C-alpha cells in the first residue's frame, strides 16, 4: 500500500495549470482589495479544501458521507486547545490536529466497511452529531457553548534573509490557505490519476465486482476516509485563527450539507468540479446581497434548480454548452454520474 501511495505521489505535476492557478491566487487579493472581500477569499480557500476532501470519499470512492463537519471541527478544536491550553506552537498543533482528524476518519471507515448508501450517510451524520454534542458538553476542554475567544492567527514566519511574513492580515492568510489548497489539489490530482484512483473508482462503480478482482474494499475505503478526514482537519486548523473565536455552532450538521452541496453543484467525481462548487457557493450569498433578506431564499432556490437542471453539476453543464457551441457531442470525461 505504501509503495503504491509513494508511486502515485511521484507522478509528474501538470505545470502549466499549476502555474496558472498560482497566478490567479496571487492576483485575487489585489482584485478584491477590501478586508471584507479578502475575508471571503479566506473562507473560500477553506471551503475549497473541504469540498475537495469530501469529493475524495463521495465522488471517487462512492461512499455517502455526511460527517465532514465533524472532521473540520476536530481540526479546529485540537489546534486551538493545544495552542491555548497547552501552549503548543501553532504549526505543531496543526500537524497534531490533522493526524487526529485522520485517525478519527479511519475509525469512521470501520462503519463504511459494513454499511452502504443512505445507511452510511446517516451513520456519518450521527458521527457529526456526536462530535457536535461532545463540543457542547465537554466544557472543561472546549468551553462548551460559551466558546473560546481571542484566538490569534498563525504566528509570523521568519526566514533568514527574507522579510517577516505575518498572517495578521487577510491577504497573507489567504495566500497561506490557498497555497496549501493548491498543494492538496496537486496531490489529490496525482492520486486519482494513479492506479490508486482506479482502485477507488472500481469500489465506487461496483464494490463486489472490485472485490472479485482482488481489491480489498475495506482497506481502500479506510484510506479514502482517512485522507479525506485529514484534509478536512487541515482546513479546520486555519478556521479559528481566522475568525478569532470558536463556538460549536460553527460545526453543526448544516456545514456537512453545505460541503455536500459544493461537491454536487460543482460536479462530483472530477477534480476541478468541487473547486468550482466551493467558489460558487461561497460567493453566491455575497453576490445575492442585493436581495437583502431574501438572499438565502434565492440561494436555496438556486441550489434546487442547479440540481434539477444540471444533473452533472456546473462543470458538466459547461462542457455540454461548449460542446454544443462547437457542434460536437459532449465529452464523457466527467465521472461520478452514478
Amino acid at each position, binding site marked *: 500500500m505504501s509503495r503504491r501511495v509513494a508511486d502515485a505521489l511521484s507522478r509528474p505535476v501538470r505545470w502549466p495549470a499549476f502555474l496558472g492557478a498560482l497566478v490567479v491566487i496571487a492576483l485575487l487579493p489585489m482584485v478584491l482589495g477590501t478586508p471584507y472581500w479578502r475575508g471571503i477569499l479566506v473562507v473560500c480557500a477553506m471551503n475549497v479544501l473541504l469540498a475537495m476532501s469530501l469529493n475524495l470519499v463521495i465522488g471517487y470512492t462512492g461512499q455517502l458521507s455526511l460527517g465532514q463537519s465533524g472532521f473540520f471541527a476536530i481540526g479546529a478544536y485540537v489546534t486551538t486547545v493545544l495552542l491555548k491550553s497547552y501552549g503548543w506552537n501553532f504549526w505543531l498543533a496543526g500537524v497534531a490536529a490533522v493526524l487526529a482528524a485522520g485517525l478519527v476518519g479511519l475509525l469512521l471507515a470501520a462503519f463504511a466497511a459494513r454499511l452502504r448508501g443512505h445507511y452510511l450517510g446517516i451513520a456519518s451524520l450521527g458521527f457529526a452529531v456526536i462530535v457536535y*454534542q461532545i463540543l457542547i458538553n465537554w466544557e472543561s476542554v472546549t468551553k462548551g457553548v460559551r466558546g473560546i475567544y481571542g484566538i490569534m492567527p498563525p504566528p509570523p514566519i521568519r526566514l533568514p534573509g527574507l522579510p517577516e511574513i505575518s498572517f495578521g492580515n487577510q491577504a497573507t492568510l489567504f495566500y497561506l490557505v490557498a497555497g496549501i489548497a493548491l498543494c492538496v489539489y496537486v496531490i489529490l490530482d496525482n492520486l486519482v490519476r494513479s492506479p490508486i484512483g482506479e482502485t477507488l473508482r472500481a469500489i465506487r462503480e461496483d464494490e463486489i465486482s472490485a472485490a472479485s478482482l482482488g481489491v480489498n474494499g475495506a482497506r481502500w475505503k479506510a484510506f479514502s476516509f482517512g485522507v479525506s478526514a485529514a484534509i478536512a482537519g487541515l482546513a479546520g486548523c486555519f478556521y479559528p485563527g481566522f475568525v478569532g473565536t470558536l463556538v460549536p455552532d460553527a460545526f453543526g450538521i448544516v456545514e456537512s450539507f453545505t460541503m455536500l452541496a459544493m461537491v454536487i453543484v460543482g460536479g462530483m467525481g472530477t477534480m476541478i468540479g468541487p473547486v468550482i462548487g466551493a467558489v460558487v457557493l461561497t460567493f453566491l450569498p455575497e453576490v445575492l446581497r442585493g436581495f437583502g433578506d431574501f438572499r438565502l431564499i434565492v440561494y436555496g432556490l438556486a441550489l434546487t434548480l442547479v440540481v434539477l437542471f444540471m444533473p452533472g453539476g456546473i462543470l458538466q453543464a459547461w462542457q455540454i454548452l461548449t460542446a454544443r457551441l462547437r457542434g460536437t457531442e459532449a465529452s464523457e470525461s466527467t465521472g461520478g454520474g452514478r
Partner: protein
Amino acid sequence: MSDFLALILQQSINGIYLGCLYVLVALGLTLIYGVMNQINFAHADFVTVGAFAAFFSATRLFTKWMGMSDGTGYVLSIFMALAAGALLGLLVNAAVFAPLRNRSDELRPLIATIGVSVLLENAQLILFGPIPFQFDSPFAQNTIRFGKIFFSEQSVLVVIVAALAIGGLYSFMKFTFLGKALRAVSQDRETAGLMGINENFLIALTIVIASALAGMAGALLGPVIVLTPFAGASVIVKAFAIVIIGGFGNMEGTIIAGILVGIIEAFTVQYLGSGVIDLVVFVLLLFMLVVKPTGLIAERREENV
C-alpha cells in the same frame, strides 16, 4: 407503590408521550424512503410549517376571529397543520421529487431537498422573524393524577391523536387496495407499474401522507419545542436515528424504535441530564448499526452483482 417504581413508570409514560411525537415525524421519512428510496431533508421544515400553521390558527383564526374556546381551537388547529403539511408536500413533490424521480440517483434529490429546506427556513424567517413564539396548549396546564404518577391532558391528547394517526395509516396500508398498491410500489416499482398500478399517483400520495403527518406532528410539538423557523431541525436528527434503528422503509420497526427512543430520552433526562440526549441516542444508533445494520426488524435484501 414504592417511589422507585413510580419514578420508572412516570418516566416510561413521559417517554411514550415523546416517542409518539417522534414516530409521527419518522413515519413520514420512512414512508418516502420505502416508496422512493429517497431521504427528504426538508421533512424538518414540514414539521415547522405545521407548527406555525397550528399556532396561528389556534391563537388567532379559531379563537380570536371565530370565537371558539381555546380547547376546540387547539384541536381544530391540528387539522389545519395536517392540511398545511399535505399542501406543502403536494407542491414539493411537483417541484422536486417528480422531476428527479426517474433518475436512479440517490445524491441529487438529497441536495435538492436541502435546497428546499434552506428556502423554507428562510421564507419562514422573513414571515415570522427569529424570536421564538410562545405556543401554549390549553391542555398543558391540567394534570391528571394516578397515585404518584402525573401526566398532563396534553400528553393524553398527543398519545390519542398519534395512536389514531398511526392506526389509521397502518390499516390503510394493510387493508385497503390503495395501501396494497403502495406496498407493491415500495417492493418493486417497475413490476408494480407493469401490473397497471399508477406509480406516479401513488408516490405523490405517499409524499402527501408523509407531509401531512409531519405537519400534524408540528401542531403537537409546537407547545414542546422552541417555536422558531428552525424548530424542526431539533427533532429531525432524532427522526433520522429512529428511521435507521427501525430499519429504513420499515413501518413497524419505525414505530417501535420511535417509542424506544422516546423512553430512552426520558430516562436520559432523569439520570444523565437533558444536555446529553442526542449524544446517547446517536451512540446507540452507531452501536445498533455495528450490531444489526438492517434495523430492529430485518428486511430481506439481495445483493445483485
